[in-house]
């Protein structure tokens, strides 16, 4: 990984011998001393938190696979057996299920951070795109995994999502049946979903490798979005950011543990405790919370194909964001107009999530007796804003918005203008 000159010097004969043959220790050492902007705030700790989430999911998932039965006759019972009979199965199963939610919680924070501080702008476009790819594979993995317990929501969620492929003109039905391996979601579907659910986390791990490589090649962005110019603008990753990340991880684990031990089912759906039944649809199919905004976008138009295209578009638009936001200033701290539109954008994402959970024809905002704005209409409005933010607001602001005055450097932003040579050194 390039980015800064190596400072590693092997001390022992054995380490010298290894370094000349495979400089793996050097790679690790350079990673730990990577010069990071000295002004990173806690929004920048989610990368480390996400790495931990991936490790938790892979370890707990590999263990669950040792007890899980990928067969329509045994899947539901095997998950219940894990929860009741397998030693510490209750812990590991909950850790994996709650862990998925925590993973998405962290990834959304990480993405909002990138959106606010302009982390997608040159020269970080590829870094951002790899991140979008990771998010896409995460969504696929989460969907496949949710099918495995073979409850009612698993089954009908899988039916609805694979139904998307049926909307493709001409070849849709053939494509859908090819994916399912049958006429409907059945045993063939379950076994292949299990195989792919086991595979994709390792694809994510590989993409994370590329993500970190790209990060270390172009350097980290920071809250003021100004590139580091001198050595005093940076700090060594260790111990400064290892400690900061460790503290953030500890706080994050408190939240994780709270759900894990006190509310293990709060983020799931009660209907998934009913075994899958192809003859009966639950009264109200909802996806997991982290897909709700996209579900609302899907339902925002009364057309099957257009709804799917809109939902896919909501993700595709993220990939091309570096070329939609043409403003030269990265951080929205110095963009007095854009930051307000960004705040509204976050509110709209929450509204979309709320609409995704609601019944389309129900009243979301009552206005007088038996009247008001339905979830359907509200979802349409929020969908409109979601796309307008990326396709209209950011491109237009890129042309007309005047940024406020920015500091000259990271050092000046942190320490002000006063000459304090000693202040540049970390406090003892």
């Amino acid at each position, binding site marked *: 990984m390039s980015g800064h000159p190596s400072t590693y010097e092997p001390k022992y004969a054995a380490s010298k011998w290894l370094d000349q043959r495979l400089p793996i220790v050097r790679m690790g050492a350079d990673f730990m001393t990577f010069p990071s902007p000295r002004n990173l705030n806690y929004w920048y700790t989610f990368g480390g938190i996400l790495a931990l989430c991936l490790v938790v999911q892979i370890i707990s998932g590999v263990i669950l696979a040792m007890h899980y039965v990928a067969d329509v006759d045994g899947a539901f019972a095997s998950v219940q057996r894990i929860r009741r009979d397998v030693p510490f199965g209750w812990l590991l199963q909950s850790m994996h299920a709650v862990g998925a939610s925590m993973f998405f919680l962290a990834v959304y924070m990480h993405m909002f951070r990138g959106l606010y501080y302009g982390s997608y702008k040159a020269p970080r476009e590829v870094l951002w795109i790899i991140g979008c790819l990771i998010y896409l594979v995460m969504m696929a993995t989460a969907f496949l995994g949710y099918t495995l317990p073979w409850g009612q929501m698993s089954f009908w969620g899988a039916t609805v999502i694979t*139904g998307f492929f049926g909307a493709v003109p001409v070849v849709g039905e053939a494509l859908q*049946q090819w994916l399912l*391996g*049958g006429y409907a979601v059945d045993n063939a579907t379950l076994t292949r979903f299990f195989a792919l659910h086991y595979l994709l986390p390792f694809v994510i791990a590989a993409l994370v490798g590329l993500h970190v490589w790209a990060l270390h090649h172009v350097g980290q962005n920071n809250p003021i979005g100004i590139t580091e110019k001198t050595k005093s603008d940076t700090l060594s990753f260790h111990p400064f950011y290892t400690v900061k990340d460790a503290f953030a991880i500890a706080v994050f684990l408190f939240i994780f543990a709270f759900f894990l031990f006190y509310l293990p089912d709060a983020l799931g759906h009660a209907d998934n405790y009913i075994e899958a039944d*192809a003859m009966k649809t639950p009264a109200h199919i909802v996806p997991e919370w982290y897909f709700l905004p996209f579900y609302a976008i899907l339902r925002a138009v009364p057309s099957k194909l257009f709804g799917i295209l809109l939902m896919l578009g909501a993700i595709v638009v993220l990939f091309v964001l570096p070329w939609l936001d043409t403003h030269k200033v990265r951080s929205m701290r110095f963009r007095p107009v854009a930051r307000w539109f960004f705040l509204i954008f976050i509110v709209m994402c929450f509204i979309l999530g709320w609409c995704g959970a609601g019944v389309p*024809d129900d009243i979301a905002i009552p206005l007088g007796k038996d009247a008001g704005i339905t979830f359907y209409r509200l979802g349409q409005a929020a969908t409109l804003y979601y796309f307008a933010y990326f396709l209209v607001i950011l491109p237009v602001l890129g042309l007309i918005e005047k940024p406020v005055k920015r500091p000259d450097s990271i050092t000046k932003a942190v320490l002000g203008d006063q000459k304090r040579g000693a202040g540049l050194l970390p406090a003892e």
Partner: protein
Amino acid sequence: MSDNQPEDGSKRDFIFLATGAAAAAGVAAIGWPLVAQMGKAADTLAAGSIEIDLSKIAEGQQLKMLWRGKPVFVRHRTAEEIAKAEAVELADLKDPATDAERLVPGTSGEVDPKFLVMVGVCTHFGCVPVGEAGDYEGWYCPCHGSHYDTSGRIRKGPAPTNMAIPPYSFVNETTIKVG
């Protein structure tokens, strides 16, 4: 290539193209089984047909049977439901079909409008619609709010087409064979 012969590039081009073509054919030959294995297996395709006895279904009752992993609805419609289904103007329909077109003639060659047989799967995303519900008192899909009439035709909501009629025929006056 010997020195006394002029260099002929076309031979090399030919070998290059032929090798490339053979390699591409090889990749396609091994790639196709990898893709095709995902399709319906022979036993899935053979999961074939079911017979349904209509005489056991009372008027106003609906039978649900599993066929190829999907529910099949057999509804013994009331006179009122039939009248409603037949009274609809074709111009009002998103996926125009008369009620009679959605039925199969019995052993006598006549269409009996009493029994409606269809795949009980919403054409939107495949949920199972609820009977005697919705704005048209036919079926209502709880997933995304599609309304079907008493002939199973889409009337309102996101579903693109009417509920499908499975291939079926009358074995005798009161028994049908689906599939």
